[in-house]
């Protein structure tokens, strides 16, 4: 079972975004929590909560792969616009590094390019600058 880390990741990303951008516009994003119930014909009944992002682009980031009567298996990649350009908070920086070890997610630059967070942070720990990747 993969750990559900979407919530923390997205919040962290938004937090950084909030340092560079206004309340509204491209950074308006948050998390939707949905309790689910699943069943199968073998008498299995399960309950869990799934979380996914609500925001522009609307593409999730987290890979859900837990077994609930063998029914839930999904992968998302987060796509957003212009998340942030700098990380000034050392605690936040470390938090993102920790997260990058546990997930496969990307940072959107203000020019529409994306780069893996782990790569970005390792390359320029405290001063990320937008750059065209692809």
């Amino acid at each position, binding site marked *: 079972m993969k750990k559900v880390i979407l919530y923390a990741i997205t*919040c962290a990303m938004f937090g950084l975004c909030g340092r560079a951008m206004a309340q509204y516009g491209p950074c308006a994003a948050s998390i939707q*929590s949905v309790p689910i119930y*699943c069943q199968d014909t073998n008498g299995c009944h399960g309950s*869990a909560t799934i979380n996914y992002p609500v925001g522009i682009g609307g593409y999730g980031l987290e890979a859900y792969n837990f077994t*609930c009567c063998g029914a*839930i298996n999904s992968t998302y990649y987060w796509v957003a616009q212009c998340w942030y350009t700098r990380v000034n908070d050392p605690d936040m920086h470390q938090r993102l590094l920790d997260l990058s070890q546990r997930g496969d997610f990307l940072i959107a630059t203000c020019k529409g390019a994306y780069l893996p967070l782990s790569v970005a942070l390792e390359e320029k720990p405290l001063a990320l600058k937008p750059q065209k990747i692809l």
Partner: protein
Amino acid sequence: MRVLKFSTIVAVCSIFTGHVLYGQTASSKPGLKPSDKGDVIEIDTPEHKLELPPGKAIPGIEGSPIIAMPVQCSPDGVAFVEMPLASDFRQMRVASLEEKGGHLYTPGTVPGLYDPVLLGFFPAESDVAFLFYATRDAKETDYSMRSEKGPVTGKARLGTHQNYIALFDRKGVFKSLIDLPIEYEYRKIAELDSGEFVLLAYNPVNRVASLQLVNASGEFLRPLSIPGGMLDDPKLNQGELGGSTEAVTASGSLSAWQFASARHRVILYKPHSSAPVLEVGSGGAVREVPLAAPPGYELDGVVSGTDRWIMRFRRSGLSDSQVSDASTASGNFLLYETNPLDGSLKTRLSLKSGSVFSLACEADGVVSSFLVDGSAKFLVSSASLAN
């Protein structure tokens, strides 16, 4: 009746045939008896064993092994179940389980609305209201990403997104679209018998939760008061005082709050907490009701109904991010009828097998349940509650 310490009762709560003996924190519930220790009370709760006959297949609808909770119910007792696609949880379908023939709602196909994320829905007598986050801007922008697992490319709509209410008729046909103010992050929707909407939102400027009465055209009528016991929440408090990260967390936490229809009113509740519930009636009249719970359990959900308050409780401490055994045998979830006047436990409702999650609706003292059979058909059955 012996008086036991709270912790002892949690460990040894005994189920008798016909009656259930439970301890309960004293709080200030009227009609409940404090112990001589001052912190424990006992209630002798009757048990009603629900005998559900074999279900009848609902024609016209294909079932799903995954159901997003809560099940919502129309005033005439029809269950509406939300079925996420395993390949993309955001793409929800909703099915009405009408005995004569179900209807499938595909709210993501609203004309002129793109990139929709369904946030909530609520069936009323003549329509079903769906709350979305979406955009009217059809323009797609190419994106390409590099990830540790290889390149990812696609198209995304980056235009202005906001909340909308989409109304469908009871046969699943789209009727109309209502724009909601962009200043709020709307999270949940309910519809009163009188036609007004009750909307739960987050105000990202003031960083507070907002409960609003809105007319059928989407125009704001007035704010409704949220009980302090619901707002007393670490995430909401941190959202008010902390940085933007905490504000987003606070806003997201409201997505876990739920609406249910009950006794021709609406209940707003906060799962997995001991907070009171809020009943909203005609014209937005509100009533706060403290809710009792079996010891060691907390509110998980409300079964919508026209006549009774039926609550599902979850064993405290179960993880949200992992799958919990929801079978009746596990004892992780319990069903109780609750007194709507004071929130006290009234009757435990027990099932022989299956899961308490299968209990969908109550209408005039009759409960209905559903399950999905091996041929992906919804089977619905019903049983009477005790008076």
